[in-house]
């Protein structure tokens, strides 16, 4: 029987409260930016910081009020953004243009809440341009983008770690200047430890899917990682993930799963399209095929050991390691934060084909995959689109592999019947492969 996650309610409430605070809190500081930004520096400015991250907000809004969000995308395109631009970006900018915002409890608020600062990152070619456009449309919002140089093994390269740390350090000075607030190192260090802890805890939760049956499926992974992407700096976010880790460990010990029929284990590379297109997940579910691992759900806000002795591993990091970290000075805390953020698997493949391939090889092996599903997102130019075709070449003689195009939130870009047919074929191939025939 399928297991029901009891921590789910905490996760949902936390996510919704974060967004409600951004929308309705009477005071405080509203901060906007990529969710892939180190968030702890913002928390050094006080206890009343309300954050909204571009990608998770767009993803969750599209899942909650899809019709509204299609209007946002169209508004952005009418406003001049290209059909091929990132659809998360377009949805987000579309809300600014339409001067309304939708959140996960289905609230649609008229009057877009203007941020006090934009604190973001830049890695793909649109990452900081996204907020340049938001800032321009809102008449100029102070904006600071951190250049995350990225590339495989970046967190172990002192040159890159120093570069990112220098930018964060300068950014903290900037934050003080533009907000007029004094920066509290005490609050900052606390937030850094929480941020790192949540990222490590999520890595541990994902790694439990190495077990058979895998306790979590892709749709549940997508649903459970919002606190880690929305605001991972709070005590509450740590508490939620500690509770979730305990629960998922308990599931493993008892051989339980949210999707217990797992004849085929699939490794998936792509953004969360099974959430927007449950019919795709259903094809797999009906034959006992489950996505048990994906770079997107694991690596967007989870950290793993990464490259050890020249080879990538998805083994988790011991959460106790976080408690031992020396964060006794601002610079030390910044450095640890830079390392953990640079170590995100999703960063690694953006600028480094070999890291992407190493991650794929390790995931297929460690999660004992029967098949590899590649679903590049047509409007995301990072590792959710690059390197995919080359990966088909790598795995073609090992396990059944299919590829079809999707998009993170723009349903117009998905060839649903074609993707369904390919998925059915994929299932047949895995069946045949198991029998030694393909």
């Amino acid at each position: 029987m399928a297991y029901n996650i009891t921590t789910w309610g905490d996760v949902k409430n936390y996510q919704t409260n974060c967004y409600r605070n951004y929308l309705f809190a009477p005071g405080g500081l509203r901060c906007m930016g990529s969710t892939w930004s180190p968030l702890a520096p913002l928390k050094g400015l006080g206890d009343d910081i309300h954050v909204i991250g571009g990608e998770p907000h767009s993803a969750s809004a599209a899942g909650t009020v899809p019709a509204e969000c299609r209007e946002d995308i169209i508004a952005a395109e009418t406003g001049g953004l290209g059909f091929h631009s990132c659809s998360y970006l377009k949805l987000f900018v579309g809300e600014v243009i339409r001067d309304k915002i939708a959140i996960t409890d289905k609230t649609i608020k008229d009057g877009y809440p203007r941020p006090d600062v934009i604190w973001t990152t830049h890695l793909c070619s649109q990452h900081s341009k996204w907020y340049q456009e938001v800032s321009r449309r809102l008449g100029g919002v102070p904006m600071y983008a951190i250049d995350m140089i990225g590339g495989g093994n970046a967190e172990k390269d002192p040159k890159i770690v120093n570069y990112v740390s220098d930018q964060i350090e300068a950014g903290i000075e900037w934050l003080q200047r533009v907000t007029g607030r004094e920066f509290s190192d005490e609050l900052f260090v606390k937030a850094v430890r929480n941020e790192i802890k949540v990222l490590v805890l999520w890595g541990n939760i994902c790694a439990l899917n190495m077990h058979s049956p895998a306790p979590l499926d892709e749709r549940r992974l997508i649903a459970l990682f919002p606190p880690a992407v929305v605001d991972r700096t709070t005590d509450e976010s740590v508490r939620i993930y500690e509770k979730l880790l305990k629960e998922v460990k308990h599931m493993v010990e008892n051989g339980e799963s949210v999707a217990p029929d797992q004849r085929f284990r699939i490794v998936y590379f792509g953004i969360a399209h099974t959430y927007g297109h449950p019919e795709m997940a259903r094809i797999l579910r009906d034959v006992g095929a489950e996505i048990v691992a994906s770079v997107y759900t694991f690596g967007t806000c989870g950290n793993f050991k990464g490259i050890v002795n020249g080879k990538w591993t998805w083994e988790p990091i011991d959460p106790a390691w976080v408690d031992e970290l020396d964060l006794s000075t601002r610079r030390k805390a910044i450095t640890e934060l830079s390392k953990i953020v640079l170590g995100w698997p999703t960063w690694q493949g953006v600028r480094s084909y070999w890291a992407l391939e190493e991650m794929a090889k390790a995931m297929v092996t460690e999660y004992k995959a029967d098949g590899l599903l590649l679903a590049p997102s047509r409007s995301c130019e990072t590792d959710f689109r690059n390197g995919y075709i080359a990966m088909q070449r790598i795995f073609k003689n090992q396990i059944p592999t299919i590829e079809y195009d999707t998009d993170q939130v723009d349903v117009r870009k998905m060839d649903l019947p074609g993707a369904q047919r390919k998925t059915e074929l994929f299932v047949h191939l895995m069946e045949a492969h198991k029998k030694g025939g393909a």
Partner: protein
Amino acid sequence: MEKKGRDAIIERFRHIAENTPEYVRSLKEKGRLSAGYMCTHVPEEILYAAGIVPLRILTSHESQAMTRGYIHETYCSFSHDCAYQGLKGDYDHLDLIVTSSSCIHMGEAFNVWVRFAGFQDKSYLMQYPHIIHTKPAGGFMAESFKQFKEFVEKLTKRSVTDNDLEEAIKVYNHNRRLLKRLWEFLRHDRPPITGPEVAAVTLASQVMDKKECNGMLEQLIERLEAEPGQAAPGVRLMVTGGACDDLGLFDLMEHLRYDTSIIFIDSCTAARYFWFEVPEGRHDKLEALAEGYIGKIPCPAKDTVPGTGEKKRFRFVQQFIEDFKPDGVIFLYQRFCSPQPMDVVALKPIVDKLGIPSTELELDTTVPKAQFQTQLEALVEIIKGVTP
């Protein structure tokens, strides 16, 4: 009939721009080392100082399907075409392929060369800031340049001295000044050279040994300075946008139903390639290079001023508009490019505010001439106030 003087020199430049692999082979025959590069953020001076001729990988605009098996179709045609150059083997004579981390699309083109075109053991990916205006960016660049210099020294089995670097900086600065002088002709009422000709020369300069290029440029400028202008320029058009090495498109812009002149091209295949200088005579040559490259007109993929999010390129564009006085602006970008069209959204209102009509052309591997011609003629009609 054999062309003489300026025409012969321009024709030679254009031939090199359109037949780069042939030029690479000629270098090989002379015993020269050569390196292809994918993005103009590679400091060519370091290669040149080591005796290597750097050449930009440009495209051939052939309709092809080969690269669809290596790069996703939603990457820009320029990156596909650059990847194609490697896959079809025309550049096998290169001793090295190098790029700096810039836009994701060109990074993929580079990956194709490295993984599938036989360049696995002769490639270099340079870490380069994505935001060039931060304070720490200069130090990071200088460090990256140092690592690159060490790599090049190992490759060539010779050390690159400060004198070598200074000499290379001077050769390259000289080239930039000559190109700038060439472009300055287009400001004149009766320029002795056309926009497409200047574009061809600029493109050729990106694939040539700079000393040879400088010699030809000096001869050309000398002749042009002695010549009167050829014709009234007609409607003055300025192009701004992304990489475009399709000289046929620039020819088209000057062969409409109306008289038109291209008077400036702000793109990384034209003015953005050379519109900067590296400080000379500095103690630390690599820091000087970093300072010079930070001073470039920013590529939209790297253009975010910390604190304000300002796009610095717009300041340059406005300056060019003031200096070159266009009647119309053409926004040019590759289909599927992310950063360029994002800039158009913000730049168009500025151009509108200046009262300058504009149009957008979206590029692909091949150019839809009839469609573009109609679009461009409509722009000219708007400028001239032609009543239908």
